[in-house]
């Protein structure tokens, strides 16, 4: 699955990056975020679009599996 690394970007950029990436791969993708604000914003955005979001907490970052 396509992976999108948003580390170092702060909101709203990770959400916009996710929005664009989902346009290209609507079946889903993995988004890496490195701050809680972005984790919550990307999750909320994907959920609002009807995706399921699996969250895996890493060291100082989160792996969000966004799936239909």
């Amino acid at each position, binding site marked *: 699955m396509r992976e999108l690394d948003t580390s170092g970007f702060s909101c709203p950029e990770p*959400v*916009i990056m996710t929005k664009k990436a989902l346009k290209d791969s609507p079946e889903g993708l993995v988004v890496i975020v490195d701050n809680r604000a972005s984790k*919550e914003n990307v999750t*909320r955005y994907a959920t*609002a679009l009807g995706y399921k979001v699996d969250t895996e907490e890493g060291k100082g970052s989160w792996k969000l599996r966004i799936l239909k």
Partner: protein
Amino acid sequence: MVVNEKGKLAITGVIIGVAAVVLTVLGNPGNMGFCIACFLRDTAGAMHLHTAPIVEYVRPEIIGIILGSFALSVLRGDFRPRGGSSPLLRFIIGFIVMLGALVFLGCPLRMVIRLGGGDLNALIALVGFIAGIGVGCVFLNKGFSLGRAEKQSGLEGVSMPFMTILLFVLFLAVPSLFLFSETGPGSMHAPIAVALLAGLVVGAFAERTRLCMAGGIRDIFLIRDFTLITGFAAIFIAVLLGNIITGSFKLGFSDQPIAHSMHIWNFLGMFAVGLGSVMLGGCPLRQLILAGEGSTDSAVAVLGMIAGAAFAHNFSLAASAGTGPGLNGKIALVIGIVILLAIASVATFRRRGE
């Protein structure tokens, strides 16, 4: 979960609104219980960075907000020293945001507080603010970015909170170092302990909820998300009710506390603040919170705002209450908006070419 988040934002908004009204009752200037731009400006004056005699005071609210955010983010493990995303550009944008705020006479937070007091000049400013955010969102959608931030050392991350503590200690221990207004808004302030406590509480709640005055409108434009706007609405309602209860609600354009009715300049001032806030990733309040969480990029933006406030008063760019901005201020603001648009265009175009 969404309801939860909105609920927390609503509670935070009510706390800020109540704090603003209470601080005003206890001595802060009218419709200015909590203004980030005004208070950074007063603090700049107290530190001799400008010498406008009516706006000099070390505002404990500012110190409290940074430290409240710092303390809570450390406790919750969210303190992350990071920086290096175009710091100098952020300084310049912060500078221009302050200029816009001082032409309007308030940051986005005070704009809402003024709205809640019945000041219709703030309604014109809100239209400008929304327009600025709208333009910022167009750039964001086209790929605007100030670049990736990198991890920084803990030492770098704690520098801003520690400078804030040092300022507060000096303020308490050697007040003779600072300038304090004897008349005007700078002379009006709530007791230090109450102001500090209000700042700490607001800082902690705003850190937790990521409340941002610009973010709420931005998220509606960008992703049709109405979460962050809840805080904005709650502040307005709390201040409105507070003002009605304390009898200080007064609807109209004229004779509003520390305000002016030059509509075009109220509009353009907040246009600059809206656009600049989107470029920085948050309003002036949010920059203080992020600085407390270890973002040195936001700390640099705050320093830019302080420098902007100093220049605004040293070169007569800030508006005067009642009469509005002078020629210097008008020219400087227009140049500032052009610079913001130029930075936004280049930062968008460059990203596209990558």
